[in-house]
Each structure stands twice: as structure tokens, then as C-alpha cells.
């Protein structure tokens, strides 16, 4: 195994950490504790500041075979960043510079350790916007890229993959490569960059990303629509899209989750009526356009028995609502597990109703939040379910249902280290083998983030 001494030779004495109390936070991420893989004991944390330093570390790790794990904001929910074998954790915290907000090409170039929150502020300062909101604002761009994060506000313009136009990557064998650039079109050879996006850190260390920006939307509004029946709320979602309105986001929340999260944040959930809510975020080139979309949304919601429709236009009122939605996972933690499945958007009503039947069968409740416009729901499996020993049974019933509906096991959290068995159960053998072959082509000695994302 590579020694701390050798790493100090690369990054300097100040940037290698071995004291156990100082590495504790590098051994966990935001995976529900009950599902979190166990971290190894002998970890060396190293904090490089250049791609060249990372290259040297990886070359060393190949010479003296040592597992290497890359650490961003620690907001992943599938344990991908957890060092499960004795080895090196590369923390990206010093890659924190936004190199450029290019208002001519509408692109941002930023180092991988820049947080989502910092990018949003920097873009806003130049009258630009980065439309998606892939979860926790403490997440780092490198992590968001390799996890292909989604979050809210993906309905209109898509998930991280749709924004990533270029990358600087250190390959597991140490070569520093550049892929793509400030380009909206580029069909040059195989799209390796898109293989790295969503590879969960097993194919390379992303050190820099180029992201597409949009001009700041002159008009935005956030609607909160209340229902007495969650099925009515969910059934509204495809109808909104069919009506010709494509919002930035259509989110779903149960009342108890909304209030629990608001309390957790010391805030107040704005809706007084109803037990189930849709949050619809609209954008337009002016206020009139936003209002005309809002009228169409309100009319559809009315048809599906909405009991109240609120509308926020002030920036802080809109961000309060989004904050409550974005912090649900932290507020409901700890729980037994939080699922991340997706079904075709048109089938989301069937999906919700069928999961309710499963809950009824097991005499339990399964609260739901989700990116309803994307067909992506997070069913929250409470500790009570694990205590009764029915966690695996319920999960498998839900996953079987998702597969039957042509859905995805994980829409945005990824397989990580948490769901390898699940992937093994549902993925065909040929695709498993191709995935292993690709990993081997990038990383012949399997040093980078082993035990993650592919079936061994």
C-alpha cells in the first residue's frame, strides 16, 4: 500500500491526513445509516490541488496497488464515496475555483470541488442561471457530474448530463485528458465523456467541468397546489405536461414530510389545506408568459380536485419552498431506506397507487416525495419497517413493480456500493460483462473506487 510519506512527497506535508479523528468524516456520506457500507480502518486522506498531483497519486497507486477513493461534498446517497478497503481518499476540497463564467458562450468552467451553491451564486452575479437543482447545495460539481445528479428543476432542461459540455479528467492510469469543451455539438469518436458521467467515480477523477448556462429567467414563479387525495395530485402531473406547459420542476410531497422538513429547518410550510402537494416551478421570458402558464396549470389542477393553489413570486419565498423540498432527505433521516425509482412519467399514477397497495398489504405507511414530472419518486421506508423484518420483502415488491412498468431501479442516486445486489438481480449477464470490460479498459488494476456501480 502507498504510504503517507510517499503522498507527502507529492502534495506536501500539510495536505496528508492520517489522524483517525480527522478522517472520520471522510468515511461516511449521506446514505441512510442502516444501508451505509462499512468503511475500512486504514485510510489516508490526501488533499491535492492540481490534476498533475492527482496523476502522480494514481500512478503511485498503480505501482504499489492501492485502492483510491475520490471524495466530493459527501452528499451521495448510495455509498459511492465510502472507502470500503484500506487505501487512499482523494479529497477534492482544494479544487474550489470557478475559472470562468463565459457570458458570450453561456458556459461556466469550474474546478470539480466547487459547490453547487457557489456555482449558483456566481452565475446569478453575471445575470446567468444554472437551471437544475440537483439536491444539496453543498454537493460538488465533480460528484454531481459522475453521479449524473438530477434533483428538482430537471423537467424542462434535463439532468447534469444535459449541462456537462466538457471535462478535464485524470484517468485511473494517470493520464490527464480533456473531453469536449464549450461546445453544444461535438461528435468526435466515442462519447467517452458521457461514459464518465454517471460512472460513479470508477472510470476517472474529474478535476474540471464545463457547464452550460442559461440567461437568468426574467420571470419565474413557484406554485404550491394542495390536494386532499395524493392520487389526484400525482394524476395531475402528466396532465400538466400534456397541456403543453413544461415547467422547470414538478415536485410531489406528502403533508407530513413537508411539515416535518419545514420544522427541521425552523421554517413554516406555506400551505394550510390538503394532505398532498405539488410544487410547480415556472419560468418565462416575462411575467405575462409565466402567468399564462400558471393559468393553464391552475386549470388542470382544478380538474383533478385541487383544494388550494398558492403562488410565490418573490425570490426568497420561492427559494424557501425549494429549500424545504431539497432538504427532505436530511430531515427524514435516519430511516431504514429511501428508494429512488423512476417510471415513465405517464405511469406515475399507477405506480403510486400500486405502492399504496403494497403498503396496505404490509399494514404500514410509505411516505413519498419526488420529482414527479420526471417520473422519479422517493419512497421513504421508515425504521418501523426494518424493525418488523419486512424491509427486503417490501423493497423487492416495489422493485418488481418498477421493472414491470419499464422503470429504473435508481433514477439519480446511483447504484453506488449500496445497490450492487439489486443490479445483479435485474441486469442481464451480457451488460454486466460489458460493464466489467469497460472498467478494465480504463482501470486495468481496479484501483479507482472498487466495489462500486458494477456487478463484480
Amino acid at each position, binding site marked *: 500500500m502507498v504510504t503517507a510519506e510517499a503522498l507527502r512527497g507529492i502534495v506536501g506535508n500539510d495536505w496528508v491526513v492520517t489522524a483517525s479523528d480527522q478522517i472520520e468524516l471522510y468515511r461516511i456520506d449521506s446514505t441512510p445509516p442502516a444501508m451505509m457500507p462499512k468503511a475500512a480502518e486504514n485510510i489516508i486522506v490526501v488533499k491535492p490541488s492540481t490534476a498533475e498531483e492527482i496523476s502522480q497519486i494514481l500512478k503511485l497507486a498503480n505501482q504499489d496497488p492501492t485502492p483510491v477513493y475520490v471524495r466530493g461534498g459527501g452528499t451521495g446517497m448510495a455509498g459511492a464515496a465510502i472507502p470500503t478497503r484500506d487505501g487512499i481518499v482523494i479529497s477534492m476540497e482544494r479544487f474550489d475555483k470557478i475559472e470562468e463564467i463565459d457570458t458570450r458562450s453561456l458556459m461556466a468552467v469550474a474546478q470539480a470541488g466547487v459547490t453547487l451553491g457557489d456555482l449558483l451564486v456566481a452565475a446569478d452575479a453575471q445575470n446567468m442561471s444554472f437551471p437544475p437543482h440537483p439536491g444539496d447545495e453543498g454537493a460538488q460539481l465533480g460528484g454531481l457530474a459522475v453521479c449524473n445528479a438530477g434533483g428538482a428543476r430537471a423537467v424542462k432542461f434535463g439532468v447534469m448530463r444535459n449541462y456537462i459540455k466538457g471535462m478535464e479528467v485524470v484517468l485511473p492510469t494517470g493520464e490527464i485528458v480533456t473531453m469536449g469543451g464549450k461546445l453544444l455539438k461535438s461528435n468526435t469518436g466515442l462519447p467517452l465523456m458521457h461514459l464518465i458521467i454517471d460512472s460513479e467515480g470508477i472510470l476517472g477523477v474529474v478535476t474540471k467541468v464545463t457547464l452550460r448556462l442559461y440567461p437568468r429567467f426574467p420571470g419565474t414563479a413557484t406554485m404550491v397546489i394542495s390536494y386532499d387525495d395524493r392520487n389526484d395530485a400525482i394524476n395531475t402531473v402528466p396532465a400538466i405536461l400534456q397541456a403543453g406547459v413544461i415547467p422547470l420542476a414538478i415536485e410531489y410531497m406528502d403533508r407530513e414530510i413537508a411539515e416535518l422538513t419545514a420544522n427541521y429547518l425552523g421554517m413554516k410550510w406555506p400551505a394550510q389545506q390538503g394532505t398532498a402537494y405539488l410544487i410547480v416551478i415556472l419560468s418565462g421570458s416575462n411575467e405575462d408568459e409565466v402567468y399564462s402558464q400558471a393559468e393553464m396549470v391552475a386549470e388542470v389542477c382544478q380538474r383533478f380536485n385541487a383544494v388550494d393553489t*398558492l*403562488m410565490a413570486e418573490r425570490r*426568497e419565498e420561492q427559494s424557501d419552498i425549494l429549500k424545504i423540498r431539497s432538504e427532505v432527505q436530511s430531515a427524514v433521516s435516519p430511516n431504514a431506506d429511501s428508494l429512488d425509482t423512476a417510471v415513465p412519467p405517464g405511469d406515475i399514477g399507477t405506480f403510486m397507487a400500486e405502492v399504496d397497495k403494497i403498503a396496505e398489504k404490509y399494514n404500514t405507511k410509505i411516505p413519498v416525495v419526488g420529482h414527479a414530472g420526471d417520473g422519479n419518486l422517493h419512497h421513504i421506508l421508515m425504521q418501523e419497517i426494518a424493525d418488523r423484518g419486512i424491509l427486503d420483502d417490501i423493497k423487492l415488491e416495489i422493485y418488481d413493480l418498477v421493472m414491470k412498468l419499464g422503470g429504473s431501479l435508481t433514477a439519480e442516486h446511483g447504484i453506488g456500493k449500496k445497490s450492487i445486489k439489486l443490479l445483479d438481480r435485474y441486469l442481464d449477464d451480457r451488460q454486466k460483462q460489458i460493464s466489467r470490460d469497460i472498467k478494465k479498459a480504463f482501470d486495468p488494476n481496479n484501483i479507482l473506487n472498487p466495489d462500486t456501480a458494477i456487478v463484480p
Partner: protein
Amino acid sequence: MDIIVPVKQVPDMERVKFDTEAGRIDRSSASGEINPFDLNALETAVQLKEKLGGTVTTISMGPPQAETSVRDSLARGADRGILLVGKEFAGADTWATSYALAAAIQKLGKWNIIICGEKTVDGDTGQVGPEIAEWLDIPHVAYVSEIRDASESGITVVCEMEADHYGIESPLPTLITVTKDINVPRLPSFADKMKARKAEIEQWGASDLSEFADPTNLGLKGSPTRLNKVVIPSEEGRKGEVFRGSPEDATKKIADALQALGVLGSAK
């Protein structure tokens, strides 16, 4: 209970840019919105109306685009909105602003309570509310964080001054200014927003106030305050420095560095 809520349109302070050389706010850099404290005042008024009946009227003084803030106050529960607009009102300091608002309130005639936000986020003086009360010669209570009781004859409130809380009773008519702690303003419904978009906003000019206001006391002419210079402090970013040596040496160096920056007193 008839309630009046003066509201001011302010720029979104998180987004607004400052022209540091000219020492002024670049108002075109951010959209205008109701002063956040005035939202608490409006919510207080609407809650009182829901409990006791009556009406809520908002009055704003500002440029024509301040009409959007008056509309927003209608969406949030006000029954009537009035905008004082015209070049005669321009350039007013807190003295001339409160004078004009007090004249408009006199013109309205019938009211029981005036509720203001404790201050505005752009001016930050907290003077206009109490000054309106002085012009109208009515009692006022500033920094109200709770209304304990309200009836047609009087109001009992809790006000916060420094670290203390005071329970205060006031007869009506009266004026209170409220803090952010008094409530969480509700979100307007979409239906109310649509109604407010189509509502008629009454616009009053200086001539509409001639019965109650001397025109020479309005706007810049009526403002004793003269602005000499605005200094916009530069933003300091985070800084870091690594101090090396034995724990004792390093501690001393850190203390010296903090003293040099003026954030730590000298060690005895």
C-alpha cells in the same frame, strides 16, 4: 377594525448592485418588491381583519412602477390600494415621506390602526412609522413582536427594545411598527394574484392631498436631510493563513495576527 398599512417598494437587496464610485444603488440591477418588514405588517393587518372584521388599505409612495407592490399587497389580503405618485413626491427623506403618508391617511378619514414594518431594508432608519404617528398626533408603539389582544377600543402588544420585552396597552387610534418575529407572511393564492393583476389601483398626486398637505413640505423641497456622500463598504472575502511552530509559538502568532486586524484586544 379599519387598518392602514403603508408599504414601500424596495430593490431585492440580495441581488441589487452598488455603484461604488458614484456612491449609489443601481436600481435597474434588481427588481422592485414590497419591503420584507411591510409583509409582516400586512400579515398582521390581515389577521386582525379576519378576527375582528373591517378593511385593510395599503398606501405606497413611489415611482409608477411601485404599482406592482400595491398590487402584491392586494393579492396578500388588502382590500384597497393607493399609490402616491408624481414628481412632487420625489427625493423625499423620512420627514417628507411621513408627512405625505400622514396627509394621505388624513384624506382617507376613517381608520383605527396603522401598521408599519419596523424599517425598510434600503433606508434602514425605522423613522417613517413613528413620524407618521407624530404628524397625526396619535400614540405609537415601535418594534411590536406580538399582539396580545385587540378590540375596537384598544390594543395590547408586546414590544422588544434592546434585550427587554414590554407589554404595552394603547387606545385607538394608534400606530404600531412590527418586527419580523410577529408572524410568517402567508403566500398569496393564485386566484388572489389574478384578481390583483386586474384590480384598479388608485393613484393620488400632490394636488389630491392639497387639503392636508402644504406642497412645499413634499419631496426634496420638504426634506431637511441633505445627502453629502454615500460610502459603500467593500466586501471582504475569507482569508486563511497557516501558522507554524510549537503550539505556544503558533498561538502567539495567531493572537498577534488577530490583534493586528483589530478583532482581538491585546493580551494582558
